């Protein structure tokens, strides 16, 4: 009962949010929230740490952007193509990476994603260092004009809520239970008769596809795709979001995405305020030192705070 009430409250909040806050920032947060949730499906519920999720996120953004801009495809098809691309790449990278376990799995995903980074860097259609600019938003189903930020926001919100519902459904399905068994004890899952490799691969492809969906939508919302989105630092950022919010919790990655994106956007202001209060000139440059701050949060989280915010709260309540 109280859970249903909570869901309703969050949904209501999201419905009225664009009237209080800047819709484009909200959409960006929603996209990263889905990205982090997709990543969490892998680390939190299957126990696989991928350090290559930027390949799916940023890769899908490029493909969708190209499809909308150069091929003139409608919004829905562009998003679909981006997502399918991410799923396909996920199938290849995942298929290779699950041949090794643990730390090697992580290194392989990182290396293969880096390879894709170089491919996108050299491919002519991505615009190299300049990125893919001015992606048109177009019309939903040919009638609804998406150039209006508010309309776009509700479309994005609908996509995100449906995807989130899908993730929740997967986690609670028999398939999700097998994934949990794999996470807890892989040999035991094998001896119970489950084909562990197939389950891992399917989870990886699903996670990659959802990450791709998030990237595709983000490209349409912001109107550009850049190398930053396929760089390994983006893979690191999504790990951080999930870690801060809480690995293996449903809402943790969402909260983590909100915190990290807000931090990225507001760090400059905080720095300027600190400089004013403490009269230390250096704080004015804080906005450019986002990497340093994210690194610091990483270290603190890993050393003292491994359950993340939602995880800690859940542990307290219990």
């Amino acid at each position, binding site marked *: 009962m109280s859970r249903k009430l909570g869901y309703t409250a969050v949904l209501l909040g999201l419905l009225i949010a664009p009237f209080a806050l800047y819709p484009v920032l909200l959409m960006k947060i929603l996209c990263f929230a889905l990205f982090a949730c997709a990543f969490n499906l892998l680390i939190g519920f299957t126990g696989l740490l991928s350090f290559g999720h930027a390949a799916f996120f940023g890769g899908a953004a490029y493909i969708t952007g190209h499809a909308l801009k150069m091929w003139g495809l409608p919004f829905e098809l562009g998003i679909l193509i981006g997502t399918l691309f991410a799923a396909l790449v996920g199938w290849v990278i995942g298929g290779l990476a699950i041949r090794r376990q643990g*730390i090697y799995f992580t*290194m392989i995903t990182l290396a293969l994603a880096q390879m894709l980074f170089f491919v996108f860097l*050299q491919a002519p259609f991505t615009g190299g260092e300049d990125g893919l600019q001015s992606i048109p938003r177009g019309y939903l189903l040919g009638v609804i004009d998406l150039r209006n930020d508010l309309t776009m926001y509700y479309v994005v919100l609908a996509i995100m809520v449906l995807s989130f519902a899908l993730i929740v459904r997967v986690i609670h399905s028999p398939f999700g239970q097998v994934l949990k068994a794999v996470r807890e004890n892989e040999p035991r899952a094998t001896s119970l008769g489950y084909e562990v490799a197939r389950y891992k691969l399917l989870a990886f492809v699903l996670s990659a596809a959802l990450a791709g969906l998030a990237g595709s939508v983000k490209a349409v919302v912001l109107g550009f795709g850049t190398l930053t989105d396929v760089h390994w630092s983006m893979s690191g950022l999504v*790990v951080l979001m999930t870690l801060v919010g809480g690995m293996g919790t449903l809402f943790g990655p969402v909260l983590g995405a909100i915190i990290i994106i807000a931090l990225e956007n507001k760090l400059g202001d905080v720095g300027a305020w600190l400089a004013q209060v403490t009269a230390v000139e250096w704080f004015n440059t804080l906005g450019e030192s986002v990497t*340093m701050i994210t*690194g610091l949060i*990483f*270290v603190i989280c890993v050393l003292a705070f491994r359950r993340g915010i939602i995880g800690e709260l859940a542990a307290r309540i219990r």
Partner: protein
Amino acid sequence: MEIFGIPLAAFLGQLLLGLVNGSFYAMLSLGLAVIFGLLNVINFAHGALYMMGAFLAWMGLQYFGISYWVMLLLAPLMIALFGMVIERSMLRWLYQLDHLYGLLLTFGITLIIEGVFRSFYGVSGQPFAVPPQLAGATDLGFMMLPIYRAWVVVASLVVCLATWFVIEKTRLGAYLRAGTENPRMVEAFGINVPLMVTLTYGFGVALAAFAGVLAAPVLQVSPLMGSNLIVTIFAVVVIGGMGSILGSIVTGLALGVIEGLTKVFYPELSSTVVFIIMAIVLLVRPAGLFGREK
């Protein structure tokens, strides 16, 4: 004279450059393997510490006029100290946990180090002159041999082989190998394993810093030089497997050469060839060329 339509001198030049890069790969993957063997930590910060080594050499010359040769010894020592502080103060608390946390912690440390250097020096490279004793080139008749590049290859080979000798042939190395197999048993024999772990980490990152100082005159000294390298090193480690010391050295050198040759024959592939080889090795021999299937 030509080889496959490429002038011999250009071909040999790229081969040498490949060997130079291969030496860096060898030293860095060797350090990673030694650290992983005892600590079970994949040290993401390896690239950042390599970058710090190069920067220390540059800063020593720039601010204090300390020569390259002194910094070649001093920088690895300073980085070793820095590494040991990291190990004692942070890494130590994670040994009981999943190995992934070690990777995440060192990733965070990488971001901090890189961020600090970027806020001071930006992303552009700082030039570093070749030390006068090694400047210029000798004419071998069939090619001009830049002396500094030859020095890099020789120096790294000596350091790598010395490391191999110490680990495989001396008593100290025997302790280390025993500690890799079964740390509790080694501790029961009265050996101070925590100290050994700290020193091993220090030694591993000192190798990275040594490579960094060697790299300073070849590549430009920039805050990003390490993170571009570390991902390639990971691929090298996956290809070679971390089971064998000589394996790491051979794999590193070989991949450097292959990369160099790709630059000659098919430049478009030169940045991705290592990753393609990794994918093939994973398909054919998942444990890596020198790895043991657990």
